[in-house]
């Protein structure tokens, strides 16, 4: 049965890598934020799966609860940033170009 959970964990990790492609590529910042949010939620699940593999779920569940409670703080913080500065892409990536033109 442990082999089954190792299989589940590896599948989750590989699909996480697929999501990570969006974080790497993402045309806008919002796409990156979305990908990071998905990775954070799946990390919670992976912690519990690791607990089953170690056969000590009672210890690992505490970490997973803490993680599940905290992992949406970063998303809310970034969202508050974008509510104050309503700029998706900085007007120019290079400060120098602005001064020249």
């Amino acid at each position: 049965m442990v082999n089954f959970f190792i299989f589940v964990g590896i599948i989750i990790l590989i699909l996480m890598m697929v999501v990570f492609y969006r974080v790497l590529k993402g045309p806008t910042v919002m796409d990156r934020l979305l990908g990071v949010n998905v990775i954070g939620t799946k990390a919670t699940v992976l912690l519990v799966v690791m607990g089953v593999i170690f056969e000590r779920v009672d210890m690992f569940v505490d970490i997973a609860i803490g993680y599940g409670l905290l992992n949406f703080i970063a998303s809310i913080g970034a969202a508050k940033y974008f509510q104050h500065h309503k700029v998706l892409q900085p007007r120019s990536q290079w400060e120098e170009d602005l001064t020249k033109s």
Partner: protein
Amino acid sequence: MIWQFDILLLTLVVVCGFVSLWIKDLMGAVIVFGAYSFLMCLVWTGMGAVDVAFTEAAVGAGVSTIFFIATVFHTSRTIRYNKWDLSTKFFSSIICILMGFFLMVAIGDFPAWGDALSPVNNNVAKYYLENSMEETKVPNVVTSVLADYRAFDTMFETGVVFVASLVIFTLLLQSDGRKKLMKSAFQKVSFLNVSESLIIRKACGLMVPFMQLFALYVVVHGHYSPGGGFQGGVILGASLILLSMAYDIKKVFARFHMKFMIKSLAVGVLIFAGIGLICLILGGNFLDYSALSKLFPSMGSIKSRYNAMLWVEVGVALTVMSGMFAIYTSLSSNGKFEEGL
């Protein structure tokens, strides 16, 4: 140790760190760096380091990303274009490649990954694992080493958190911010002009009591499961941070004011050092808890070590909680203490 997970995760971690250095937009770099912390937590769980993973989960998911976002919020987000500075880039690359090469050569001398018979695992650590249960009755060896065997080390680590948050508070405080801070003590705040969405406020109101209850559980239950003062303190601080992000900094200040925060910062370190000092007065060494059994004769030396560890954890949690909140309020309001992130 689950090596299948670890190899995949370590590869992902290297890619993630590289991407966060490579992205030009600073906000994007900070967000990808949040994912880096998530993955690091999983790596440590895979290697069996549960307490470290818990700390990283609380710190990386809750606090450090918020600090970065607050800094980008108050500075600029663009990166200035530099002309291809050949000398600096070339010089630094040469240094890094050379040093990396030498370290790679030295790899062959280290013990293999997961070797149980290496010298690291067989001298001091073996003593702790075999004697912790008899001497302190604490099953979680990490807690007993943290709060008892190496308590002197931990005391100064707590002191570093204390000093760092005081430094941030004093250096970033502005003169008009100081006046506002004095004025806003126990002032009634109207919540009508809060610009946040209702959904976030309600969800945070639902989560924060659970968070604080869970943090207290983590502090108290650290003897039997992963957890302890550092983790519980960071989660308590993160709950206050969440509250001040959902509403306003002033709402938290109305209940948990800055003066009170500075006091509780100091009280945490004082509890830790005070217990050590009591041990010194009672005739033991500094932080040798078994001397406390002279004060409470009903407890044996084992029981007194067990109980003193709990009080030490409470002190650590107080300091870390108020330290994290002090750092957040200073950084996010740029020393004005007026409105949050």
